[in-house]
């Protein structure tokens, strides 16, 4: 198995896990949705700064670098 395939599988697993967490939260299990978790992280100034910085980094890194 090539390194590229390993990386793709790992990322696919990560995405599937995220989708499963989101679905589980929306079906009423005792979990927060991704949106609730991100919004909650923005309650404090350091958390808000981290979330906004992560968003800026994602844009610059993937779209403009």
């Amino acid at each position, binding site marked *: 198995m090539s*390194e*590229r395939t*390993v*990386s*793709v599988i*790992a*990322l696919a697993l*990560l995405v599937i*896990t*995220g989708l499963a*967490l989101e679905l589980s*939260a929306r079906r009423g299990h*005792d*979990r*927060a949705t*991704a*949106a*609730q*978790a*991100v*919004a*909650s*992280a*923005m*309650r404090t*100034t350091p*958390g*808000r*700064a981290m*979330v*906004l*910085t992560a*968003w*800026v980094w*994602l*844009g*610059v*890194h*993937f*779209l*403009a*670098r």
Partner: protein
Amino acid sequence: MLFVSAAGAAPGYARTGAVLGVISEHERVTFSACTRWLTFLAVGLPCVAAVIVFGELSTGALLAVGGIGVLVAVVGLARRAGEAALPVGRRGLPWLGWLAAGVAWELLTLVDDDLPTVSDLADLVLAHPPVRAAATLAWLIAGAWLLTRPGQHPQPP
């Protein structure tokens, strides 16, 4: 007489005032939503256009995305976006674990030269202009969503 008249008229005026207040509130909300959409389009469309036109690894795309990113971050911090969001407590722990797993994998790929990073894989997909435009739009929508998180706590009367 004047007192009676005033007392009799008061409920009508109050009701009219309340109705006008609701209409005014409705207009304000509609106007606010319209302004938000226009602002989003005025800022977002040039950014998407710049990313498509200038392409990968270009100064133009970097200025467009970086400029809007810094602007949104500054506005979000100044408005304290998200300050009044509901806490999730331990219900958010699975997402923290998920994020940690993602960061750990990215670090591993950065250390191991043979493993392609997320960026290496994403670049192949984002090389196509339509996909790049869609990704830029999604990024801008996420930024607008972050900005509209509830800000200030309601002040007690």
